[in-house]
C-alpha cells in the first residue's frame, strides 16, 4: 500500500510526499486498535487520513513559506513531463504520474484514488467531499485531458 499512498501524495502534496506518508502511517498505527473492517474499508480509511494530513501540510506550508518558489528547487520537480515520452511507449510509472500531477488538482487526485488506490466512486466521493456524480465528471475530464496531451504529442500507433 505504500506505493499507492506515495503516488497519491505526490499528486496532492508533491514536495513532502515521504514525510507526510510517515505521519500518515503513524496515525494509522495509532488508530489500528480501534479499526474494524476488511481490506476495502482499510484502504478507504487510509486514504481519508492521507487527504487530511496532506491538507494540514498544505496549510502549514503556506504559513511557513519564506523561500521564494524559484529558489527552492520545487519548480523543476513540478514541471510537466514530456507528453511525447509518455506517448511513445517510453511510459513509466513516474512519467505518467507526473503527467497526472500536472492536471487540475481535483481531477488528478480523483484519478489516483480511483485507479491507483482502487477505491470505488462512492468511497472517493466521501473522501474528497463531492457527490459521486461530480467525482465521475472530474475523473472523465482528467482522462480526456490525458488523452489530449498525448494526442497533441502527435503520436499515432
Amino acid at each position, binding site marked *: 500500500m505504500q506505493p499507492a499512498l506515495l503516488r497519491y501524495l505526490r499528486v496532492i502534496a508533491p514536495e513532502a*510526499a515521504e514525510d507526510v506518508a510517515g*505521519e500518515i*502511517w503513524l496515525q494509522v498505527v495509532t488508530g*489500528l486498535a480501534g479499526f474494524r473492517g476488511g481490506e476495502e474499508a482499510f484502504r478507504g480509511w487510509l486514504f481519508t487520513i492521507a487527504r487530511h494530513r496532506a491538507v494540514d501540510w498544505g496549510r502549514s506550508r503556506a504559513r511557513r513559506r519564506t523561500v521564494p518558489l524559484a529558489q527552492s528547487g520545487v519548480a523543476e520537480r513540478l514541471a510537466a513531463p514530456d507528453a511525447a515520452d509518455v*506517448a511513445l511507449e517510453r511510459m513509466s*510509472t513516474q512519467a505518467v504520474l507526473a503527467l497526472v500531477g500536472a492536471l487540475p488538482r481535483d481531477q488528478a487526485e480523483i484519478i489516483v484514488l480511483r485507479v491507483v488506490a482502487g477505491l470505488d466512486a462512492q468511497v472517493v466521493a466521501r473522501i474528497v467531499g463531492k457527490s459521486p456524480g461530480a467525482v465521475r465528471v472530474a475523473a*472523465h475530464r482528467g482522462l480526456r485531458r490525458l488523452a489530449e496531451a498525448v494526442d497533441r504529442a502527435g503520436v499515432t500507433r
Partner: protein
Amino acid sequence: MDGFLFPGRCGGGLDELVLDVLLDGQPLPPDVPEQAYLVAEMLACLAGPAVPGELAGQAAARAAYARAAAWAGRGAAAGVRARLAAGAAAAVLGLGGAAAAFAGALPGPVQDLAHQMIGAPPAGRAPAGRAAAYLLCGEYERALAQGPASASADASQKLAMAAGGASKIGAWCAAAGRPGLGPAARSAGNPKPQPGNAKTAGQKPRGKARGQAGQESGGKATGQAGQESRGKATGQAGPAGQESRGKATRHAGQSGTRRAGP
C-alpha cells in the same frame, strides 16, 4: 464524405462509457477509439508495481514511527530503548491490537502493516509465541467477564484466527498459559467459575504479563524488526509489490485484450 477524417483528434473521442470502463479497470469493449488503448496503458502504468524510489519511502515511514516510539520511551537508558520501543508500540496500538498483531490475527493487509511498523509476523505466517497468545487470551477472558458482548465477539474472532479455528481456542490458550477458555466457558458467555479465576488470575499475572510481554514482545519485535530491516528491500517489496502487481494485472488485462485483437 465517406472515409474523410479530420486531421488530429481532440479528447472528445472517448465517450462516457469507455471512460467508466477505464476507471474501473475493466477490459475494453471492441470498436473503441485508438486513444482508449493509449489511456488504458497509461492507467496501467499509473497503477503499476512499486518502483525503487517508492520502497525507499518506507524507510521514512519507519523512521517516523521510530521517532514516536523513542519519544514514548524517552528517559530510559539507551540499553533498554529498543525493548521499550516495542513496548511503546504495544501502548500505541492498545494492548489488544498489538497482541493481535503479534499473534498474526489481524486481517491480511493490516497484518502486513503491523509487520512493517512493529515487526509483527507478516500476513499468512504462523502466529507468534506465547507472550502474544497470553495477551490475546487474557483480553478475551476479560471481555467475557466484563462485557460487552461485542468486545468478546471481536476478541473471539481474533483468537479463532490465531488459533486456527474456534474449536481450537481452548487448547491454544491453555498452551499459552491461560486455561479455562474451553467451549463451555465461551458459549456460557458468563463464566461463573471463571470470574473469580479470571479476575484474580488476571490481576496477578497481569503485572507480570505486561513486564514479560513487554520484554518478550520487545525481544521478539526487536529481533524480528532487526531481521526485517536487514532484509528490508526484499521483505517489504513483498506485500507492496504483490498488491500493486494485482492492480497492474487488472489494467494490463486491457492492453492484453488489445494486442490479441485484429
